[in-house]
């Protein structure tokens, strides 16, 4: 019961936040001197009537406040509006969200499955050659900017011909058997996943290592050892449980990045995810699409934090008492 009230409180708190985010982003987009019709204006074959019709259709003839009011009203009703090409924003997003989720979930799952054990192993083998090699390798991973790493891998794919050059499926995807389709998607995913994985692995592994080292140094661990507990019990029952708490907060942030975190890599690999869609929308000042994606980002962040907090309440009795 207590936890339900807590969730409700948090949701209510987030409403003013969302309103502020939406106002700021709406006005920034509309006040920037990007004219969605500039291209049309310079096209010799477009008549004045067409220009006026377009201005009315996009609502550009009304003051910004009125435009915002209209947008907010339909947003609350759950209608995201239409893009500047007349397509449903929700339909556009629906096309892309599964692709982006496929990529980011694989990456997050991989980094956690690999990163946490590696962090633990490094902490337990503190200052051994194993730890040092890992440190160097993860430094390399952190040092390469994702954009250039992605471009390098693309060139690698072109020169060797081992990997497809971007995209998610091959052009004869429809004619493949199910197993071939699975392999085709995997084949296309290897490079983008490699880029994102290398980057986030380094951070996660180091965080885990540092946390565990901190905890291993604390008095209660010394006490547990002194009590004569087996090393396994000391590490996995006592130390690890405490070391994992900050990681859960981190998971909340990762959740927020599910939809937007991979945009740059998606762009380089021509991955049919949200990144490319939103980049083009921003360039064309396609207001409904940009607003939808910004709001989605804000909501995901709030949700991520909420989930992290709830998880913390479950794992950490100390917080439960305070709440």
């Amino acid at each position, binding site marked *: 019961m207590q936890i339900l009230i807590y969730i409700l409180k948090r949701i209510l708190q987030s409403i003013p936040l969302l309103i502020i985010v939406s106002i700021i982003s709406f006005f920034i987009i509309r006040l920037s001197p990007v004219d969605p019709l500039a291209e049309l204006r310079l096209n010799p074959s*477009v008549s004045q009537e067409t220009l006026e019709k377009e201005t009315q259709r996009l609502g550009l003839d009304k003051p910004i406040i009125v435009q915002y009011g209209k947008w907010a009203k339909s947003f609350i009703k759950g209608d995201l509006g239409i893009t500047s090409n007349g397509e449903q924003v929700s339909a556009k997003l629906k096309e892309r969200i599964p692709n982006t989720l496929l990529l980011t979930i694989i990456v997050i799952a991989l980094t956690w499955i690999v990163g946490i054990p590696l962090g633990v192993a490094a902490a337990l083998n503190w200052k051994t050659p194993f730890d040092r090699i890992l440190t160097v390798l993860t430094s390399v991973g952190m040092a390469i900017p994702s954009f250039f790493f992605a471009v390098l891998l693309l060139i690698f794919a072109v020169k060797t011909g081992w990997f497809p050059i971007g995209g998610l499926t091959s052009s004869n995807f429809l004619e493949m058997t199910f197993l071939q389709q699975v392999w085709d998607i995997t084949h296309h995913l290897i490079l983008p996943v490699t880029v994102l994985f290398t980057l986030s692995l380094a951070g996660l592994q180091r965080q885990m290592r540092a946390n565990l080292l901190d905890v291993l140094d604390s008095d209660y661990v010394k006490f547990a050892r002194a009590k004569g507990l087996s090393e396994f019990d000391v590490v996995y029952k006592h130390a690890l449980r405490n070391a994992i708490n900050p990681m859960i907060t981190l998971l909340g942030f990762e959740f927020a990045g599910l939809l937007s975190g991979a945009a740059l890599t998606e762009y380089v690999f021509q991955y049919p995810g949200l990144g490319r869609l939103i980049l083009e929308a921003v360039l064309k000042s396609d207001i409904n699409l940009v607003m939808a994606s910004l709001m989605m980002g804000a909501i995901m962040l709030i949700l991520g934090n909420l989930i992290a907090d709830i998880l913390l309440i479950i794992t950490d009795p100390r917080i439960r008492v305070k709440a």
Partner: protein
Amino acid sequence: MKRAGYVILVLILLVICVKSCLHADYPQTVKPALQPHSITEDINYPEPQKNVTIDGVDYLQSQAPVGKFGGTLVASTIGEGPKTFNPFNSKDNISSQLSEIMYDGLLSTNAVTGEPIPRLAKDFTVEGDTYLIHLRKGIKWSDGKPITADDVVFTWQNIILDGFGNTSIRDSIVIDGKLPTVRKIDDYTVEFKTPQPFAPFIRMLSSPIAPKHVFEPAVKKGKAYFDTFLSTNIDPQTLVTSGAFKLKEYVPAQRVVFERNPDYYIINTKDEKLPYLNKLVYLIVGDINNEVLKFEGGELDVIGLQGANVARFKELEKHSDFKIYNLGPNTGTMFASFNLNNRKDKNGKFNVDLKKQCWFQDKNFRQAVDYAIDRKNMVMNIANGLAAPLFTAESLNSIFLNKDLKPYDRDLEKSKELLKKSGYYWDKKGHLRDKYGNHVEFDLYTNAGNTEREAIGVMVKQDLEDLGMKVNFKPIEFNSLVNKLVNTLDWDMVIMGLTGSPLEPNGGKNVWMSNGTLHMFNQRPANYTKDDRYEWEKRIDYLYTQGALATDFEGRKKFYDEYQAIAYDEKPFVYIYSPLIISAIRTRFKNVYPTPLGGMTYNIEEIYESEVKSET
């Protein structure tokens, strides 16, 4: 000691990584050269397609060599892919390009000569304002229903003339507020009548024809519904089309796949139904770099090349399985323009400073600037030699190009002579001053971010400074620039580009007619009534009106030749260059007959793959 070991280990790992990425790249040895001639000149084009009637069906017979059936051609489009599959709603290039594949028009264009030729129509006659179209008997929509005069009349009357979807076709055929009419004579004959003879109309007959039985319910539901009709999330199987290929699959942000229409009305000389290719794939790629990588990696079969890539691919060509074609200058024009405006704005202030007006409105001044500009230098240094210097208002591949207007080189002496004639002189410091002693100084704008135009701006500035002018080059944001050109009108000189049509000069009427919406060198506000046209503007207005009214090609060309001669002499636009179209295609594709007008794959139904790759 231990530490050194780790460092070496890491270095080795890195070296392995880098080594596998590096591959012997062919050195770039050939310097780009001026390539004014189109290498398409030595292609032997087949005879034009002919009408053949077999068992009561009017086929169109391709005269190209007989090829092999099967195979796939993979092309690409840059951007976010099609926005609609409704050919009457498309507002962007990709949507129109794809709908042209799926929907044929009554006529099309001979890609070599530019003449209108029959397509869905079997033949056509034009007499003054009357266009009589005979349709092919026995040809069918992809769902098996016959294509008849009803479809044509419905498309024109109920969709185009009633203003459904994108109204640009309708806008361009309004003559003095009146629209053409269309009438069914019998099941296979249609008659169009324009309010007065109007030559550009014939080109409009290549617009797609819609199947009445599919589009009629949508039209009945009104314009708002029609705007969303056949959107991209439609099931491909439900599209009823008439083109050589029909839609098979659309994967957002990845590709559009077409498959062969087995019942198409074009046949080869062995009377087998074309197209040869089984599939036509358009990959949707986000940017040029990725497109080039995909072509290099073998995922693409045909590509348009630009800038430095051309020289690199030219080198690669010798060792590779593709051939590069130079299709000649495209319809794009790059120019510098002066503001000839002599009106006051709403606040009673002149749009252009009075002293600047004296310069810009002086023909000698404009010609002097024109002679001072070093086009060849710009072609070599900015366009990598892949452009042709431009001197005429019609683009170099236009069938209406006035070939008497000769190109010339930079001539500073002539510039100075022209300036002296108008009373300009140079002071001790070499600054150019007009006859009232004002130093000639003005602003040059272009849109920031367009590196090509920015580079041209820098070179124009340098060229004009050789004449002692002071040019303040100011690249500004695109939208602000458009606002200056169209609304506030407070600019001096600008570098811009426009695209025209190689077939129809009348498309440029918004630029050249004095009341046009893009008459940028002397833009009048909307609903401006006072007649303050320059004499030559009046003449161009007259020529443009008459050029559209005359119907035979020779008659029209006379008017358009004169307008180009006026533009060449008066220099409201100082034209700079047109980029060349360079395309590459894999050599395993045969029956490739690229032309400057049609591009690479206009004859897609005739193209075949000589060695069909096994489908993997």
